[in-house]
């Protein structure tokens, strides 16, 4: 579906979102680079925003944000990282799950200002070059989604669950993944995918 619209003009929703939000994010970056404009920027910040520095997927991002901005809105609306999804925006569905300093956390209940100095990993930071993370591959292999909206959160949660060491059996996977809801109810396949990836990631590497 994604990639071409009905007229086949090669226009995608994701590309549109990224273009719009990156243009917005470029404004504070440009202002910061302009010497002599600093005093004015600080006056503006006092009424409309505060400077925020975030480390996301290994890269540093300097932004000027309203203190109310959540990490989720920052990722999606300011940085064009639309992988983390806004489901409930109340900490109840897990669609916004990201890793903060290696721990899975909810981006919708995290203030961007409070995420400074921490290392944030999103679904966009999971694949190594062109190679999917084993959990991403397992979700494809096991057909572990229908609409796909909860999938980035499911995958981020599963990666953490496996590294926490609690993905040894289906019951533990169900308990450990209970913070990620799937309204399509793809649960049986999600559990199978997490178990497959857990086997792969915890297997003793074969001698070369």
């Amino acid at each position, binding site marked *: 579906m994604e990639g071409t619209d009905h007229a086949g003009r090669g226009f995608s929703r994701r590309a549109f979102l990224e273009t719009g939000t990156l243009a917005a994010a470029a404004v504070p970056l440009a202002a910061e680079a302009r010497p002599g404009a600093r005093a004015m920027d600080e006056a503006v910040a006092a009424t409309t925003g505060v400077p925020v520095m975030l480390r996301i997927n290994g890269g540093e991002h300097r932004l000027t944000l309203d203190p109310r901005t959540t990490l989720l809105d920052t990722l999606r609306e300011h940085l064009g990282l639309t992988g983390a999804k806004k489901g409930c925006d109340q*900490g109840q569905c897990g669609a916004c799950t990201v890793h903060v300093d290696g721990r899975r956390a909810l981006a919708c209940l*995290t*203030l961007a200002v409070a995420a400074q100095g921490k290392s944030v990993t999103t679904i966009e930071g999971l694949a190594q070059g062109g190679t999917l993370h084993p959990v991403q591959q397992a979700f494809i292999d096991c057909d572990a989604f229908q609409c796909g909206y909860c999938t980035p959160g499911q995958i981020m*949660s599963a990666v953490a669950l496996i590294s926490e060491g609690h993905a040894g059996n289906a019951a533990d996977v169900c308990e450990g993944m209970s*913070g990620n809801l799937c309204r399509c109810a793809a649960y049986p396949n999600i559990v199978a995918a997490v178990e497959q990836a857990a086997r792969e990631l915890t297997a003793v590497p074969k001698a070369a």
Partner: protein
Amino acid sequence: MRPFTYETATDAPEAVRAAAASADAHVRAPVQLIGGGTTLLDLMKLDVMRPERLVDVTPLYARFGRIEATPQGLRLGALVRMSEAAEHPAIARDYPVVAQSLAQAASAQLRNMARLGGNVLQRTRCNYFRDPSYSQCNKRDPGSGCAAIDGFNRLHAVLGTSEACIAHYSGDFAQALIALDATVEVLGRQGPRAIAFADLHRLPGRTPHIETTLEPGELITGFVVPAGQWTRRSTYLKVRDRESYAFALASAAVALDMDGDTVRHARIALGGVATVPWRAREAEALLAGRTLDEAAATEAGRAAFAHAVVHQNNAYKVPLGQATVARALLAAQAMRL
């Protein structure tokens, strides 16, 4: 969400001074300390809480993020993450009720975010408190009335209620703390002090908007759980609408000091059914010196709810809570140590 200013605390007295600017420690206090923020930000998005100033205390983690298990007891820093305490081997082995109450709460993501100090201060899931489109809520707007008493009150408390408020205390960890006679350490303008955990939460009475005995600005810095042979024979049983990631409809924290099958002292606390973390002293007294069997456990369950006050939709919590107490007692007795 309404506008606020955000600052980080660099030392504890500074955080206390900042938060002490609030006139009193109630729901609508204009300065709020923020830890994991999982309750506070949620309630700010819902426009229930409207702080003008947030003071982030998580930078104090190095000082208040430690877990120490000694022969005298367990000391938990207020900024320890729920997940860190739930996973701690000494807590799982020697204080299973503490580990279980944390592991059965919320989701893995929330347990990584929420801190122990904030956890005990989490606010009720009363749907009328959480929805400002209802004008009546004595907890939100003192004197406005209570929409829950004549409303849909399936989740609400049957113990410790008043004519002003029947909102349930929805946490889990607090039941483990009150059952084990824990102490809360706080830092205030006059310096540090210790409060029995049982004295931290206030019954709603006529002032349900004042939920604790904390003074304005007082910061919870830690918890101390005294050691005792009963802490190993302890368990947390939580009954909910779904098997995981749900608040308790009824829960019981139980720790047993046994002489064979005879109860020396049973410690029982109830969750999901009361307005505050609730110690079931009458049930405990009934069991002292008795042989613990199904009949005694059932009787204890009944005693725990002898003074229950039910409303339109929550009468089921009495038999559910009674059975939860009985099952938790028998489960703790059956533990092989």
